[in-house]
């Protein structure tokens, strides 16, 4: 694959994953109490960590999403998004295994999708989309490039 094509692939992956993460964070940031309840439904997080987790996760999603879209610290953001997707896949799998009939809380805190295999596939695809920005040698256009001075010839 040529360098330009790879750069384009990385850019598309970054934008897709970034926009998804930003969109996913908005409702949770506005309603942390409702999101805490959604997390509680999974019955995986102890009460002592429930609220800190409900406040940290959406903000991390937003910052990682912005970093990917803007191309700032994008390889670190890709790494974090891989870790978050792995966590989501583990939580969904655990809920499916235990037969919990709960909403996933992926984008909305008031209902939304119930946990199911479709969501696992979606998270797996998102995880795959995080790999090019992490491992590619070319990173695609980024916001900091706009502020770099061109070297005089």
């Amino acid at each position, binding site marked *: 694959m040529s360098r330009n094509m790879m750069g384009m692939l990385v850019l598309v992956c970054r934008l897709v994953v970034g926009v998804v993460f930003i969109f996913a964070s908005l409702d949770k940031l506005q309603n*942390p*109490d409702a999101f*805490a*309840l959604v997390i*509680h*439904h999974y*019955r*995986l*997080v*102890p*009460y*002592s960590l*429930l*609220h*800190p987790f*409900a*406040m*940290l996760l959406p*903000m*991390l999603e937003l*910052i*990682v999403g912005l*970093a990917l879209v803007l191309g700032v*610290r*994008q*390889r*670190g*953001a*890709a*790494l*974090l998004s891989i*870790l978050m997707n792995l966590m989501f896949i583990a939580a969904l799998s655990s809920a499916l295994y*235990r*037969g*919990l009939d709960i909403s996933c809380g992926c984008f909305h805190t008031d209902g939304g999708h119930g946990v199911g295999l479709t969501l696992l596939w979606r998270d797996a695809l998102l995880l795959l989309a995080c790999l090019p920005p*992490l*491992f590619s*040698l070319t990173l695609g256009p980024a916001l900091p490039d706009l502020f770099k001075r061109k070297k005089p010839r």
Partner: protein
Amino acid sequence: MSLQASFRDQADFCLRRPLIEAAGLLIVTIVVVALTWVLRTDSLSLRADPTTYEMELSAPLVDVAAALRLFDEGDYLFIDTRGNAAEAEATISGAFIIREATFDDDLLALMDDIYPEDPMVLFGNGELSAVSNITNRLQSRGYENILILRTGLKGWEKAGGMVSPPILMDAEEES
């Protein structure tokens, strides 16, 4: 460029830099969350109050005083759900052990001792969601009459409830 230097560059590119960047983003996130928490008037408390989520538990909660009464009346079975219950020094006297990790084996070992119609009080180390998970699984097996001890074993001991070494089932005793 030597092979060693090339390998070092690869490791730096694939691992070190992303890790450093990820750590930086995490620190920024923590700082922003901390600032938001201070500035927002409707911030969540740092520690969740279990009673806020009580309605979400799989079974009603019972406090220590009521649990002590039930213990004295003798109608309720007490079930220890702590992960390390079998190795623990003490548990509520006469309590059976059902742990999440070995749920099926524990339940099988207790087949002759507890029946679906038996009323029971489940307790753990005070972590209600963990007990609630086991309650869910018991309910799916037809055990309907379940209460959860709010404070766990610590609260029980503090209130002067009777404790004794845990009852080990046959399989565990053999091993």
